[in-house]
């Protein structure tokens, strides 16, 4: 999917994550701050990059401000931000791109 404009999903509430995505000039630029950085930073990074790969996003700047969200939450927030950014107007492709 193509990242067309800046888009945000999620909140800064405890156990949530706020994901901001915007176009880049090629490649994935990932930035993370997290309240559980030491124990889960690596894992959060993997989930975000994996989710982008599933959505076939190859070029984006993505920033995640994590407040201790579970993997499923992080994944959902990233997917939402990508769909908003790409201007997707159809139904969410459950069990397709969104796994």
């Amino acid at each position: 999917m193509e990242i067309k404009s800046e888009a945000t999903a999620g909140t800064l509430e405890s156990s949530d994550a706020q994901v901001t995505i915007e176009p880049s000039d090629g490649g994935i630029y990932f930035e993370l701050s997290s309240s559980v950085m030491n124990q889960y930073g690596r894992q959060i990074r993997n989930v975000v990059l994996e989710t982008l790969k599933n959505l076939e996003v190859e070029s984006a700047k993505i920033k995640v401000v994590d407040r201790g969200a579970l993997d499923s939450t992080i994944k959902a927030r990233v997917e939402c931000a990508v769909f908003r950014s790409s201007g997707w107007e159809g139904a969410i492709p459950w069990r397709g791109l969104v796994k």
Partner: protein
Amino acid sequence: MKNAVGRDIPDLLLQDGRSVFRGSNFMDGCIYTKPGPTVRAAVKPQASKVLENIRTAINRCGLKNGMTVSFHHHFRDGDYIVNMVMREIEAMGIGDITIAASSLGDAHDPVAAMIERGVVTGIQTSGIRGKIGDAVSNGSLKNIAILRSHGGRVRAIERGEVHIDVAFIGAPTSDEYGNARGKGGKSDCGVLSYSVADARYADHVVVITDTLVPFPNLPPSIDGVDVDYVVVVDEIGDPARIASQALRVTQDPRDLMMAENCARVMASTPYFKDGFSFQSGAGGPSLAVNRFLESMMVERGIKMQWALGGITKPTVDLLNKGLINCVVDTQDFDAAAVCSVHNHPRHYEISTSQYANPMNKGAFVNKLDFVVLAALEIDVDFNVNVVTGSDGVLRGAPGGHPDAASGAKCTIIVTPLVRGRIPTVCDRVVTVTTPGESIDVLVTDYGIAVNPARQDLVSAITSAGIPITAVEVLKERAYSIVGVPDDVEFGDRVVAVMEARDGTLLDVVRQVKKFE
């Protein structure tokens, strides 16, 4: 060298008589000589002890570079004394000071900058939080910090492991001769238990009060015979932050469920009978246990003989309802506890040595039937951490946790399985503050586990129809929700040692490493 909880203690630390933890009762029967302070006689009957300000008191005590000063934490987050005294010490050009406090909290953030400036080079405490915790974890403190339980602190003083040059004791009221009490005045904190050992073992003792009362201020918590000087200041603390008006009892259904299960576990054991004794921590679920105990006591027609510890309203309520015979108090967390210790004839103040020093001959914790405590982390060996956060930074307080856990016949940890994304039940706690051998039961919102060393409790609890599970199963459940955490990475430098109650080394805390 590996100790009895499997922690590797660097050989470099094992000198000057220091050794590794070998089990809670290893020091039983050990012979030691108590140190005596070097004091100055106050013979002249008409001489005044009242000095005009703190600076004069510091001068008269002869405080010099490299000395140790002590403080208590009865004023909790409302304390003004530590900052007031330390600012004066710094202004006088004195440095390289060790602070030996019963606890340090957010109120003492200005001390962190004094660590950076070399004014404070040593910290010995039962609690370390806020900016001081950050400064020590970042390696800014020159010497290795020493973390002790409340009982362990008194042991260190009464065995001469720490020598206090000057004790500064904030007191809600004092007379001109230094007889000081936790009662009355503007900053009423109830009791002065933590300061009793300081007053008896320090070379110099300065009482700082904002309310000078007529002589004699009886009965004193701090005895005038130990006091060199009295300083009167405008305010020793912020009363609103000393005793909370009303500690809110949790309405969180998860906390209440855990509290009820905890009370049911207690009621299933043979210790739950007329005349039992009990201590509860001040955390939400621990406090709520009192509420469920009440109905179970009434149902069985039994009463509690005594309650111990930091006291809060739920305990006072049970005392006033006649369900507790007496309350034995070392700290007051709320206005109800302060009021009760002053007015109820069977609500008694004791010293922290009486409370929990493992090396005296009569610590009250040893007579406890039950204690209910919280945990930041607990691992599959039942070791508990209450001092380092999940990022490895010092931000907690052993306090009386290891003391009550070790003394009680049945020690119950009540904690949710996960907090946010952090698993509370884990493979290996970051820092061991209370050894697993002291912990008997773990109550979480996903199940109850019993230490396999306590098969007697396993049968008592299961006979009562309460389902139990293995602690490993709870850990797996936690990891299945939040994922398996990576180990926190540390630098090499040891920034703090966690002493066991008996002074042996339970664990070390290393400098934090920035996550990349």
